[in-house]
């Protein structure tokens, strides 16, 4: 079966921030480095999932490893951008706490052979809240143009990415066996949103402003 163009495009979307960092020398210590680690993890997960799909093997179980790890990396990166010490500490503690909560919810409510209905939405909603908080907290004290700030684009991209993912798991698990056509459409919509999110994150990596 030929893969839909949006699926192909989304598969390479994780490379956007990495490519942007390589071209614009955006790799620095701190939050950008963690966001690039997050992108690299997504890329590795995608490559492995494509490989397993080609072998006609179930690749959904990889989500249960990649999702909590990527949520932790995203929270850790966002913690670097906090100006308030308490907010920084809260997000740093939220990273391992989210992984722990993910494990509990996955064991209690999800099955490794199909899409997550509880653990993945929870982790994505936590990241969405953290990204939205970062946007509000930083913009209240920012003195430069927001559109030239790395934290603005990365937080906005993460918000879109995690908001899109938070409904994907439940919808996918409900449609996977009942209506494959709608299942593919759900993925196409999600891929389009994730593509835009990755472009936003890559834009953040190219920003000249130091964090």
């Amino acid at each position: 079966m030929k893969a839909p163009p949006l699926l192909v495009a989304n598969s390479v979307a994780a490379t956007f921030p990495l490519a942007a960092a390589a071209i614009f020398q955006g790799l620095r210590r701190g939050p950008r480095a963690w966001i690039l680690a997050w992108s690299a993890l997504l890329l590795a997960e995608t490559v492995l999932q494509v490989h397993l799909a080609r072998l006609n093997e179930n690749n959904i179980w990889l989500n249960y490893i990649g999702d909590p790890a990527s949520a932790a990396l995203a929270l850790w990166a966002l913690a670097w951008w906090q100006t308030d010490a308490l907010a920084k500490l809260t997000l740093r503690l939220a990273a391992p706490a989210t992984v722990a909560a993910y494990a509990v919810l996955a064991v209690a409510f999800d099955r490794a052979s199909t899409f997550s209905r509880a653990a993945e939405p929870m982790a994505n909603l936590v990241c969405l809240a953290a990204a939205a908080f970062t946007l509000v907290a930083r913009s209240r004290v920012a003195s430069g143009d927001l559109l030239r700030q790395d934290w603005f684009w990365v937080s906005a991209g993460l918000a879109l990415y995690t908001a899109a993912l938070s409904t994907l798991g439940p919808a996918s698990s409900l449609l996977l066996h009942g209506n494959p056509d709608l299942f593919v459409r759900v993925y196409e919509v999600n891929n389009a949103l994730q593509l835009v999110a990755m472009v936003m994150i890559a834009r953040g990596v190219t920003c000249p402003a130091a964090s």
Partner: protein
Amino acid sequence: MPGRELTVWTLFLAAAVSVVILLAAFLAALVLSQRRRLALERAHTGRLLAAQEEERSRVARELHDDALQQVALIRTELDALAAEAEPALGHRLRGVSGELEELGTVLRTAARSLHPSAVEKAGLVRALGELAAEFGRAHGLEVRLDLPPAGLVVPPAVGVAAYRVAQEALRNVVRHAGVNAADLGLEAGERKVTLRIADRGRGFDQAAPAVEAGLGLVAMRQRVEALGGHFVLGARPGGGTLVTATLPLAEKP
């Protein structure tokens, strides 16, 4: 159950569209409210700076018109007394008169430092030239000038801001750069003037805490941004410092 699946799809699509709309509205609101806040802050800073300049100008005028005139008057009377007095007393009176002359110089320098009236009277270019000469006299700093013709006309607030930035940047060279030469350049365009002050001194780490406050950079930045200009500081340890202030020639209403 096709109806249930269609509902799931519809709900998912509605959620996706809502996310896009809400996020776009949220980001737009953040950008717009931050721009409004910055504009208010800059306007407030502008008013504060204008009031400060006005007050400094008043004090400088009083120094120049009252204090200096009285010093001059007292000196004239002392010199007249010295001419008529016995030699020993005349010598002492002339000594006091000399001290009064020094006091006059101090007051004149303080008045000039309080308000750069030269910017209004002789124009920005000449005032910068005088400022450079003053730093040469007072601190032994050689200021290499690259200025446009003296006839350049700029709005008073822009002239005072440019002068103040140059003054503060040159003061930083004297205090921190560890060199005895600096470059002062002014470039005039149709809509803006660009002021550059550079040195090849020891520079500093811009990421170091308290650097902004310690070097008067906040005041320079605020002064420039209050007029809608841009302030850029380039510095690195051992690599010198470059201060660039770009000011619009049309004053903000």
